[in-house]
């Protein structure tokens, strides 16, 4: 009984395969002008590095503008105490003297 059922299931599976083989998938939509799209991708993939650099130009430009703006508008906070500021400067001069051996 089991063997019989096993056989029937094989036959039915084979029938499914046969039916599926009879209807090849429809590729007409993708096939149309396919070679043109492939060649476009190939040309894109072998573009030289400077072509990409040009594409990144707007990003670099925006970055430059941001940095320029930041350097113009950013003003570091100076110490309110003039003596502390002077001491800091004196320390820097001493350090410079030490490093240059003077």
């Amino acid at each position, binding site marked *: 009984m089991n063997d019989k059922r096993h056989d029937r299931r094989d036959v039915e599976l084979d029938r499914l395969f046969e039916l599926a083989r009879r*209807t090849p998938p429809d590729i007409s939509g*993708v096939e149309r002008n396919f070679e043109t799209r492939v060649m476009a991708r190939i040309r894109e993939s072998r573009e030289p590095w400077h072509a990409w650099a040009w594409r990144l130009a707007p990003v670099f430009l925006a970055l430059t503008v941001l940095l320029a703006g930041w350097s113009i508008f950013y003003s570091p906070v100076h110490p309110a105490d003039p003596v502390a500021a002077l001491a800091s400067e004196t320390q820097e001069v001493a350090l410079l003297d030490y490093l240059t051996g003077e």
Partner: protein
Amino acid sequence: MAVPDEDADLVRSAIGGDDEAFTELVRRHKGAVLRSAARFARNPAELEDLGQETFLRVYRDLRSFRGDAPFGHWLARITVHVCYDALRKRRREEKDISMEVLTAPVADPSTGNGPSAQLARMILDQAMSRLKPEDRLVITLFELEDRSVREVAELTGWSETMVKVRAFRARQTLKRLIGVDDER
């Protein structure tokens, strides 16, 4: 139908930088590649991707084509590998694949009544999407493309014994998944 010698000439020209020669190769072989890839693609967009990826790989590896076998054979191997890679990638993405049995209105061979060809494909697609990538690859090449064990072994790079084992295992799983009505 592509003439092998002409294909070899076109390959040589394409290696030399002749884009028109490579376009001609794609034009000649796109049908075979797309028909084969269509057995693995879930929709036209995926078929387009598989087809393009195949020809991109062909273009990159053109210099490794030695010409001792027809270009079509070499191309078929690349197509199979691209499709297999796509199946494995898809499998990683779809971690929770249900193994529940499909209720398929399978034909009764004694009466000849059964699903239409389109429905048969749909049932098989659903069931085969649950197979392991290697099992699906083998059963597709073996049963749907009607290739011999030797051909499948050549295309996949697996031994003939391995192909037979995988085909058998895939059939067993499919029979279980398609859930043929045992009480009939």
